[in-house]
């Protein structure tokens, strides 16, 4: 079995043994998104306009929250150190781990997003745009965020630090993802934004495993 699938499957088994790690990000995502209607004038037109942006910000925050625990248990039980000295390719292992992490967070959030769209009265043709954007954007969020998680894994108070170093790097994904919906509401074509998100995802898939591996080698010694 190759390194990628091995670590992907390992991560899956660990996550499904602990179902709370699956439910927490999704719950957080929904709660954040539902805070906005309460803090704004309850007008359907307004909620419809801001809904896409709100859902994107919630997805970013939910991903960010889930990142902190990404390497924690592996670090504390010594698995991570074993991975570092093992002859298997560390970047590939990290790619498998990050992708498995994404299926439990980003993918679940994306699948649930149409339901949230309904509460914001977003028309059905735009729901598809948002869904496609989230599906393409959230893997990049996890892959880039994993670099921050790897850099801060040995720190006791790493949570705020991850947010400080990673959120600025999330801005392009947020801009294209949420901007896509703004385009769609004006009846404009969104393929160029989809391409941009896909390009970012390609970059993230190819480069971030090396950055994650490098970060782990730096912080764990």
């Amino acid at each position: 079995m190759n390194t990628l699938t091995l670590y992907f499957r390992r991560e899956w088994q660990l996550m499904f043994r602990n179902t709370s790690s699956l439910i927490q990000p999704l719950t957080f995502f929904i709660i954040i998104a539902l805070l906005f209607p309460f803090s704004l004038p309850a007008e359907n037109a307004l909620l419809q306009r801001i809904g896409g942006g709100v859902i994107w910000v919630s997805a970013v925050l939910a991903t960010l929250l889930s990142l902190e625990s990404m390497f924690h248990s592996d670090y504390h039980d010594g698995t991570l150190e074993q991975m570092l000295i093992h002859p298997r390719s560390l970047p590939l292992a990290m790619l498998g781990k990050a992708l498995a992490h994404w299926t439990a967070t980003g993918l679940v959030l994306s699948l649930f997003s149409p339901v949230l769209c309904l509460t914001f009265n977003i028309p059905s043709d735009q729901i598809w745009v948002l869904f496609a954007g989230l599906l393409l954007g959230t893997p990049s969020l996890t892959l880039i965020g994993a670099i921050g998680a790897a850099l801060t894994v040995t720190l006791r108070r790493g949570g705020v630090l991850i947010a400080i170093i990673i959120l600025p790097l999330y801005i392009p994904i947020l801009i294209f993802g949420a901007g896509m919906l703004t385009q769609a509401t004006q009846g404009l074509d969104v393929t160029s934004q989809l391409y941009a998100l896909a390009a970012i995802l390609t970059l993230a898939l190819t480069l971030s495993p090396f950055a994650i591996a490098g970060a782990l080698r730096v912080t764990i010694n």
Partner: protein
Amino acid sequence: MNPFTSIWTFLSTTYHRLGSPREFYRISRYVTPVFGFLFLTLSALGAYFGLFVAPADYQQGDAFRILFVHVPVAWMSLFVYVVMAVAGAIGLIWRMKMAFVVTICSAPIGAAFTALALLTGSIWGKPIWGTYWVWDARLTSELILLFLYFGIMAVYYAFEERKTAEKAAALLSVVGVVIVPIIHYSVEWWSSLHQGVTVFAEGGPKMPPSMLLPLAFMAVGFMFFYGYALFLTMRNRVLINERKSKWVRALAMGESI
């Protein structure tokens, strides 16, 4: 010996000498004042031409004189970031001690340049645009850049062990420099989407020489300021890092090295 070989030998010996903290401390003692002198001369000339000689702009009046500090500072904010990331990459790849020192000492200077660019920009924007802040592509990118600098500094100070901290900050600066162009491009696209009016007129009036000259003096002067401030802070960092070594102890006791 042919001239190229001798230039190469000179460059490689300089590189290796600067790679040693002690040699850096020795050489920088002479280089730092030169940088300071060049900075003072060039920026004094720039200030003289910018404040006294250049005639007031026909559209902006005398407010355009802010640009003689704003523009060089904004250029430097990006320049410092690139230097920082290149030094970080050199440090990570060739394990060069002094490269990490360049990265760490550049971050506060770069952050200060970025903050200055934002501040002077919004002071200029108030009379010219009628508002302190516009969600314009350049301003927004600059603000994000400031947060990238903060992130690198935060990472460095989060680790107790210096070597880990240096490497972590260097790695983050390299990651950042890959993403900076993407951020810039995306923010540009975003501002064209959100903004009704374009603030910066495309193909506007070309810069007259009376304005270009002080700007050039200031820009080069600020480049030397960066070198000056960088070497001053690097000298301190070297002393702290090497405080247990013999030569630093001898230096502290007043001996020359």
